């Protein structure tokens, strides 16, 4: 019995070890490469450890004309911030209306919102591009954020589910005291639903920091490039300079990995819970 238990424990650890190695190897390899000089990369092959250790790839991302990653970082941060604030505010307002108010056409409208969950971004990017071009907004900051800033049906759907689960007693009491809709939202609804709101904030940041297809299509040239678009452009421009390219991918991924490690409990818990529906 003991032997069998030890064996199954060993099997478990074997699976976990393989999973960790396979998961981390590409990250480790790309960081190792980013810390090498181009000369060492060519001479010693892709698997050699960096010697000498150098940050020149990272510094040239920011200082030389090859990289130019300052603008993409600023653009991406601005884009994520604006989309995040807009999406959270307008989604909370809409979810509140759907969950807690009564007005004609409410359920029909909600059904329309849910139906749009089936519309993939790939299908709408070409017409969106035509609309933005027609409006003269191609390659502008507004074109990057406008399609997303007014709220997300997905967020509205999740928030509505949570808002409906709240007890109405406190709300009625606050209303009797003469509290308006906005005060009710700010002082009661949002604090009571903090977990789902934090989850949505994280999902929104991840989604839009990583977004690529729309920024690729709607921007041209370096002015409004996001980090993902700049990484892709760098790769096609300096195809054989892998040490530089790997420093760019490291930069593109590191902020989100850090964010995830800090908030992993919130993220993993909410993912598991979302299957319960």
């Amino acid at each position, binding site marked *: 019995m003991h032997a069998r238990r030890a064996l199954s424990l060993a099997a*478990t650890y074997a699976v976990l070890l393989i*999973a*960790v190695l396979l*998961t*981390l190897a*590409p990250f480790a390899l790309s960081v190792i*490469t980013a810390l090498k000089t181009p000369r060492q990369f*060519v001479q010693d092959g*892709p698997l050699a450890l960096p010697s000498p250790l150098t940050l020149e790839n990272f510094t040239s991302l920011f200082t030389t004309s090859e990289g130019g990653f300052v603008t993409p970082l600023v653009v991406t941060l601005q884009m994520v911030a604006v989309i995040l604030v807009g999406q959270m505010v*307008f*989604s909370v307002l*809409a979810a*509140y*209306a759907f969950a807690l*108010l009564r*007005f004609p056409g*409410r359920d029909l*409208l909600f059904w*329309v*919102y849910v139906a*749009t969950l*089936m*519309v*993939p*971004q*790939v*299908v*709408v990017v*070409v*017409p*969106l591009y*035509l609309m933005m071009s027609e409006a003269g907004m191609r390659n502008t900051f507004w074109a990057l954020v*406008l*399609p*997303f800033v*007014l*709220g997300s049906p997905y967020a509205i759907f999740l928030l509505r589910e949570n808002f409906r689960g709240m007890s109405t007693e406190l*709300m009625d009491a606050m209303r009797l005291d003469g509290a308006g*809709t906005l005060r009710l939202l700010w002082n009661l609804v949002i604090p009571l639903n903090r977990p789902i709101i934090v989850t949505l904030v994280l999902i929104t940041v991840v989604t839009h*920091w*990583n977004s*690529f*297809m729309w920024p*690729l*299509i709607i921007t041209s040239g370096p002015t409004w490039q996001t980090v993902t678009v700049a*990484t*892709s452009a760098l*790769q096609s421009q300096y195809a054989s300079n*892998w040490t530089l390219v*790997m420093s760019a*991918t490291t930069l593109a*991924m590191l902020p*989100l*990995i850090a964010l995830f490690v800090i908030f*992993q409990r919130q*993220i*993993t818990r909410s*993912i*598991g819970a979302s*299957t319960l529906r």
Partner: protein
Amino acid sequence: MRPRSPVVGYLLLAPSLIGVTAFLLLPVLLAFVVSLFRWDLIGTREFVGLANYADLLSGGALLNSLVVTVLFTVIAVPVTLALGLVLATQLVRAVPGSSLVRVIVVIPWVCAPLALGVVWKWIFQPSTGALNALLGVRVEWLTSPMLALPAVAFVAIWQQVGYVSLFFQAGLARIPESIYEAARIDGASPLQQLRFMTIPLLRPTTFFLGVTQVVASFQVFDMVYALTGGGPEHRTEVIASLIYNQAFDSFAVGKASAVAVVLFLLLVVITVAQQRYFGRRITYDLS
């Protein structure tokens, strides 16, 4: 609750309603309209009826990308689900250290598919890449017509397994331990327990993951763009790549919209069919 004036409701909905209408409903409608035109980014706009669809079919591009997308899905989704389940069964044993592993395996999922694609493009490079150096071979992973699609699917699997395992872990945690005790007393082997208890009891989770993963893999773009751009010889040109290449390489916006319409209808059919077919079966009587 005292019903208030409906104006408040409409006011609160107004911003998101404008967004949904202008940036989701209108573009879908526009995709249908544009698909009926020969519409080039250079300037031509001419009504041609269904000619774009006919062109795409006779040229083989649409059929090719459908086959590529289906192949990609058929490779990636089952393997992702199977590996995710295996990983989850080991993670829920909660051996010391597994909480750290649980976090690590999800890391690829939070990273930009574009950036991961670029990293893997380097790893797959024939002479300067890490994989061939590690294996001591010289294989053209991404430029050989036979290997390119499996290589792309491999990266997609690698990115998703940890994420998928989170859902399976949650599903496994909901199965009461007492059932397994009863099975052990009755002499069921671990494999029998997996086959006749765990897998059937996980059906709701598997169904949910199956639907979301299939729908997502029909839309894959960033990773393919970074790894192959659709080549070699269109062997990895998934539907989204075809849309992009038609619109922004060939500037044939009409044709691109026709492909988008086909993809949209396909996804609607998949979603509805899966709901219809599995919807009735997802509950499993626990008592």
